[in-house]
């Protein structure tokens, strides 16, 4: 099996994509709502990713 080397950002992005898909699929009742919820979760992941990244960058001094 090939070895994969990813940056923090790439790993977090991959995590966000697959988690959002599952959260979207299991959460809502119609396909339209599932798509919207999945996209919204992905957006929240991205916002949190950048926000926490900047907090750590600024907090590091």
């Amino acid at each position, binding site marked *: *099996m090939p070895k*994969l080397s990813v940056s923090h950002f790439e*790993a977090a992005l*991959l*995590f966000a994509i*697959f*988690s959002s898909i*599952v959260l979207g699929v299991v959460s809502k009742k119609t396909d339209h709502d599932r798509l919207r919820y999945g996209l919204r979760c992905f957006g929240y992941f991205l916002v949190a990713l950048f926000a926490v990244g900047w907090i750590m960058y600024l907090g590091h001094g």
Partner: protein
Amino acid sequence: MANASATTDAVAPVRSWIPVVALAWLVPGGGHFLLKRYGRGGLLLLSVASMFLLGLMMRGPMFQPQGGDLLTVIIYYGGFLGDLASGLLYFLSVWLGYSQPDVAGHVHDYGAKFLVAAGLLNVLAMVDAYEIAIGKKD
């Protein structure tokens, strides 16, 4: 009326959901396939399997149950259960000899988290399949 509904939910026949939940555990999305929700099952299979395979490719270590102080017990037993929740993906990788030591490095660390997260996402899929099987969800 509410009590009658709750009673109906409580006595949902075990035979109607046990095979679904068991298959959903062993094969991610399998419960949905059994219930003829092919599209959703396919998405769950794709997501959980991709997450698990990425964890393997990052050479993430599998958690083993380990005693010690409370935090160690929670982390290692919890991680082991998370790994186990991936079903056949976990068993196959162990049977085929995957054994990665816990070494330093952010990629290995992410790998371990991806492996556990794949199992936890599969738990969500199992709960969803269960709710469909007992008629609580469409």
